[in-house]
């Protein structure tokens, strides 16, 4: 049997487990060499490849209850909005992994993709990346820092996939060991709210969880085929999250 080298990576996020601590956001920034915010950066201009939103059930005190939901690039599979608008071919879907890749070297910074992304999961480098003196020593060598003027977003910690592939190759295998490829946010989550793996492998935990009854995709009606699934036993979470994401304001066009 030929070794399996094709995968469709996806995530399943258990909203009921998320404590909203923000470990995923910090781990992501550390892993992907995302700089601390310069002065003047706000939640509309900042770079957070994964961002935790607070939602609530809309009821008055004391019936009010909150939940926290990490939202990252949904890695759309079918009608990938960002790919279709990019004039530069700087966004593409890798057929062997299903990951929507953003290539900063090709990006000309027009931000069409940011306007097109219904999940507001794309971020523009309004500033050159600056780390406090000495902190550049702590940068991750498997990810290259991006310069001002380009768009970036989550790529499922592709640097980790590179490393996992190299490790498999050293052993003469093309197929990676799933344990070697875990994105930083998944690894960091203290509540283990995020599961990651190959959706095509029906027996994987992520595939099983994505089929559960309480699982849903964000903005399903757009038919973008996201590879991130959310799960919650609380019925209000789905609607509150859709409203939150749809009303979120990023600054895609104005300077």
């Amino acid at each position, binding site marked *: 049997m030929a070794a399996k080298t094709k995968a469709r990576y996806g995530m399943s996020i258990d909203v009921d487990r998320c404590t909203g601590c923000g470990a995923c956001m910090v781990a992501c920034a550390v892993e992907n060499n995302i700089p601390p915010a310069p002065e003047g950066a706000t939640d509309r201009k900042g770079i957070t490849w994964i961002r935790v939103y607070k939602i609530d059930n809309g009821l008055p005190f004391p019936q009010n209850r909150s939940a926290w939901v990490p939202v990252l690039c949904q890695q759309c599979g079918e009608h990938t909005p960002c790919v279709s608008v990019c004039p530069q071919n700087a966004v593409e879907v890798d057929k062997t992994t299903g*990951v929507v890749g953003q290539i900063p*070297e090709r990006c000309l910074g027009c931000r069409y993709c940011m306007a097109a992304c219904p999940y507001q999961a794309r971020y523009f480098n309004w500033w050159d990346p600056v780390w406090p003196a000495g902190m550049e020593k702590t940068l991750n060598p498997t990810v290259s820092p991006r310069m001002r003027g380009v768009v970036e977003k989550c790529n499922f910690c592709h640097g980790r996939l590179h490393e996992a592939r*190299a490790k498999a190759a050293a052993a003469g295998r093309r197929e990676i060991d799933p344990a070697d490829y875990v994105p930083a946010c998944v690894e960091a989550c203290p509540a283990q709210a995020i599961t990651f793996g190959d959706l095509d492998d029906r027996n994987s935990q992520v595939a099983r969880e994505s089929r559960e009854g309480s699982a849903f995709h964000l903005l399903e009606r757009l038919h973008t085929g996201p590879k991130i699934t959310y799960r919650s036993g609380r019925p209000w979470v789905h609607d509150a999250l859709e409203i939150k994401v749809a009303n979120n304001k990023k600054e895609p066009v104005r300077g």
Partner: protein
Amino acid sequence: MIRGKLFFAAGLLASLSAGWLGFPSMLYERVPQPLDFNHVAHTEKASMSCQDCHSLKEDGTFSGIPKVESCAACHAEPMGTTKAEKLLVERYVKPQREIPWLVYSRQPQNVWFSHASHLKLAKFECTECHGGHGKTRHLRPFERNRISGYSRDIWGPSISRIGAGRRPGMKMDDCIDCHRANHREHSCIECHK
């Protein structure tokens, strides 16, 4: 009339020679390596194998050029009378300073290159990219591009990139040609980080 053609030809000739001969030598700055390393002496006299210094680790990373502590294992004291030998011991081994080698094949920061997959899966020989570097007695000077800062080896030895040089270049186009031919061209982020 002839006179005009002559001037035209002279201009043509001048720019052609400037472009083909003058430009390459001006573009590249020849920087000597910090030490003159002799590969042959190590493989033949000291009968070391390539893997003793340049090896693939289990985690898939490639060791690259060994650290000075590996040199110190044998060269705690000068093992000969050459100038390089004296320099090695005095300047690097004793103060335990890493030797600032200039790597001929250093790729840009945003490139992910895995020695493991090219050696173990694609079954490349080292020489296919690095030529006969392992059989040299002296290190050739590092030729640094004055504009981009990269080694001349990335572009390849032939300035026109036409015809087979001693070995192919290491530009993205060279990678893509081979990946295309082998149907291993999937996405940009497969090789970019």
